[in-house]
C-alpha cells in the first residue's frame, strides 16, 4: 500500500466520520428524526468502496448494503450533502426523496440497490443480481453486507445456499461486519459458534475472519476476496470484526461509547501513519476541523432545500410507463 493510498484512505475515513458525527448531532436537534450509521466501521468500509468496481449494469459491481455503509458510499464518491439531504428528509434526497431513514442508499447509476430496513432480506435478493452477472460473464460481482445478529435469519441460509448451487456458484462476496451486538444483545448470548464463518464454511465457501479495525488487513483481505469472486466466479465470505462507537442508533442515544471499550479504527490508523511518518502529528486535527466545518456548511445549504409536500406522497408508486 503506497503512501498516497494510505492518506487517501485516511481522508475518506475522516470525511465519513465527520458526516456521521454531523448526523448524530442532527438527530439530537430538529434537523433529523433518527440516526443509525457506521461510526467504527470506517477502516473496513472505506477500502470496500475503493476496491469496488463502480458503474451501472452487469459489468460493474452490485451493492446490497445494510445501514452502516456510509463510509463505503463516501469512498465510492458520494457527495456527503446527499446523505445530509436524506437525514434532513429533503425532497432533494437523491435516494428516497425524504421518505427513508438515513443510510438507506439507492443509486441506480452505481448499482447501489435499495437499502431495506428489513434485516437480512438482502441475502435472499443478492443471488438475483449475482446470477445475472454469472450468466453475463465479465468480472462484475455482487457485494452484500450485514451485521452479525442478522445472520440468525433464515435468509442468511437462503443466500448461502443459492450462491453454491451446482453449475451456478455465484460471484458473490458475503460481508459480515461483526460488532458483537444486535442492538443490546451480545453476540455470545445468541450465537453458539465462535464465528459466523464457521457456519458458512459448511457450504464449501471460502471464509476469512479479519480485524476490520485494521485498514491494511481489511484492504488486503478485501482485495483477495474480490479477486477470487471476480476471477473464479464463485462466492467468498469475509467476516470483519468492527466497533460500534455510537451505539446501535439514536434510539439508544447515539452517545459515544466510553473510551477504551471499543477500538476506534480512525485513531488506530492515524497512530500508525504518524508512527510510519506518513503524516504529521497535526494532520488529523486540521483535516478533521475542516471536514467538520464543511459538513456544517453543507447542512446549512441543505436546510434551504425544499421539503416534500403532500402531493409528493403519490409519486412513483408504479414505474413510469
Amino acid at each position, binding site marked *: 500500500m503506497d503512501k498516497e493510498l494510505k492518506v487517501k484512505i485516511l481522508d475518506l475515513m475522516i470525511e465519513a466520520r465527520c458526516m456521521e458525527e454531523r448526523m448524530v448531532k442532527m438527530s439530537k436537534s430538529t434537523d433529523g428524526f433518527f440516526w443509525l450509521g457506521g461510526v467504527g466501521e470506517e477502516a473496513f468500509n472505506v477500502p470496500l468502496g475503493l476496491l469496488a468496481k463502480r458503474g451501472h*449494469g*452487469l459489468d460493474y459491481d*452490485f451493492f446490497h448494503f445494510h445501514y452502516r455503509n456510509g463510509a463505503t458510499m463516501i469512498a465510492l464518491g458520494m457527495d456527503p450533502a446527499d446523505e445530509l439531504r436524506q437525514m434532513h428528509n429533503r425532497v432533494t*434526497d*437523491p*435516494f*428516497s*426523496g425524504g*421518505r*427513508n431513514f438515513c443510510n*438507506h442508499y*439507492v*443509486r*441506480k447509476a452505481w448499482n447501489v*440497490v*435499495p437499502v*431495506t430496513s*428489513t434485516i437480512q*432480506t438482502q*441475502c*435472499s*435478493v*443478492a*443471488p*438475483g*443480481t*449475482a*446470477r*445475472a*452477472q454469472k*450468466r453475463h460473464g465479465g468480472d462484475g460481482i455482487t457485494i452484500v453486507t450485514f451485521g452479525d445478529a442478522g445472520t440468525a435469519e*433464515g*435468509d442468511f441460509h*437462503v*443466500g448461502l*445456499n*443459492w450462491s453454491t*448451487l451446482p453449475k451456478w456458484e455465484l460471484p458473490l462476496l458475503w460481508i459480515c461486519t461483526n460488532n458483537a451486538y444486535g442492538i443490546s444483545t451480545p453476540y455470545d448470548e445468541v450465537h453458539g459458534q465462535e464465528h459466523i464463518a464457521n457456519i458458512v464454511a459448511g457450504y464449501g465457501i471460502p471464509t476469512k475472519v479479519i480485524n476490520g479495525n485494521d485498514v491494511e488487513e481489511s484492504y488486503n483481505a478485501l482485495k483477495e476476496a474480490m479477486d477470487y469472486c471476480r476471477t473464479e466466479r464463485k462466492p467468498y465470505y469475509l467476516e470483519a470484526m468492527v466497533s460500534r462507537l455510537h451505539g446501535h442508533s439514536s434510539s439508544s442515544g447515539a452517545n459515544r461509547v466510553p473510551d477504551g471499550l471499543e477500538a476506534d479504527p480512525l485513531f488506530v490508523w492515524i497512530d500508525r501513519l504518524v508512527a510510519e511518518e506518513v503524516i504529521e502529528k497535526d494532520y488529523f486535527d486540521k483535516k478533521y476541523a475542516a471536514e467538520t466545518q464543511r459538513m456544517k456548511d453543507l447542512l446549512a445549504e441543505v436546510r434551504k432545500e425544499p421539503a416534500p409536500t403532500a402531493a409528493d406522497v403519490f*409519486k*412513483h*408508486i*408504479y*414505474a*413510469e*410507463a
Partner: protein
Amino acid sequence: MATMAQAIRMALHYGETHLGVTDVFGEDVGPPLGGVFTASQGLKTAWNSPLDERGIIGTAIGLALAGQRPVAEIQFGDYIFNTIDLLKLAGNTCWASMGQYNLPMVVTTIVGAGIHGSIYHSHSFESMAAHIPGWKIVLPSRPIDAYGLMISAIKDNNPTMYMYPKALIRVKGKDLIPGEPADERELKKMIDAPPGPTLYDIIDVRSRWEPQWPEGLTDYQVPIGKARIHREGADISVITYARHVFLAEKAAEILKEENGIDVEIVDMRTLYPWDRETVFNSIRKTGRCLVLNEDTPVCNFGEHILRTIVDECFYELTAKPRLLAGVDVPGVGLHPAYEEASVPQINDIVRELRGICGEEP
C-alpha cells in the same frame, strides 16, 4: 382449444422469445416436469430452483434489479405466505427509491379449492395480495385471458402477481388464442411433454423431446385493469373472478329458468388496479349486486369491492349489496362435505341471488 396450462405455456414461450423473459423458475418448473401443473413444459429459460420460496422471490427481485425479466413460480399459492415481507419490499421498491428502480417481474401461483386439495392445497391469496401496495394483480378464468394477461404481465414494468385457479387449469377454452392451431389434439402433440408411468421414465423420454411451438403466436394482450362482462343481465350484478365466474353462470341459468331473474356476471380478471368503470356501470344498470369469491371472509378482497361500491353507488342501489365468500374457518377440509360447506357452491349462489332480488328496500 388450449387449456389454461397450455395457454400460459404458450404465453411464456412468446415471452422468452419475443419479450425478453430471461428466467422462468421455481420448484420443479424446469425439466423434466415443467411445473407440477405443466405450465412451463418445454421452455428454454425454465429451470428448477431449490425448494425455497424466500429464495425464489428474493432471486426474482434481484434478477429484476439487474435488469432481467424473470417469471418466478410459487408452486402453490398455499406456500407463498412465508414471503409476504419480500413481496412488500418488491411492492415498495419503486416508491421507496423515488422511481430509481422498478421491478419488471412476474410471480405466478396457483390458487383456490376445487381439486380436493385439503388444508394446504386450497388456499386463496387475493385478499392478502391486494393488501400489499405496489403490485398489479391478475387472476384469469379463461385460457384466452390467461394468455393475454400473461403477455401484459410480462410487458409491465412493475411486479405483477399472476394467479390462476387450480380448478380451471385443465379446462379447455372456447376461444382460439391467436396463433393456436385449431385442432386441439395437434396442439397437444406439439407442446405437451410426453408422459411416463414414473419419474424415471419421464426423465428418459423427455430427454429426447422438444416442443414444437405454434408459429403464429402473437403478443395478444388483455390489458391489466380491464374486466369483462361474462354474461349480460338486467336484474342483478355478480362481481366475481376465477372459478366462480362459471359457478355464477350455472346459478344464473337456474335463476333465469326458475325465477325469470336476469343475472349479469362481471369477470374482474384484474384484481388490482381493478376496473371500477365496468363494475360500477353494471351495478348502476342493475341496482343490485353480489360480490362473490372463495377466500375467507374477514378482510376479504370482496369487502374492498363492496366498500367501494357503497362509496360510489350507495344511493343507486335498490337492495343492500352482499358478499358471498368462503366461511371463516382455518382451512378447507379434505372430505367433500368440508369443502362444499366452506367454499361457495352453486346452491349458495342461487340462494344469495334470490335473497337480494327478493329484498324490499
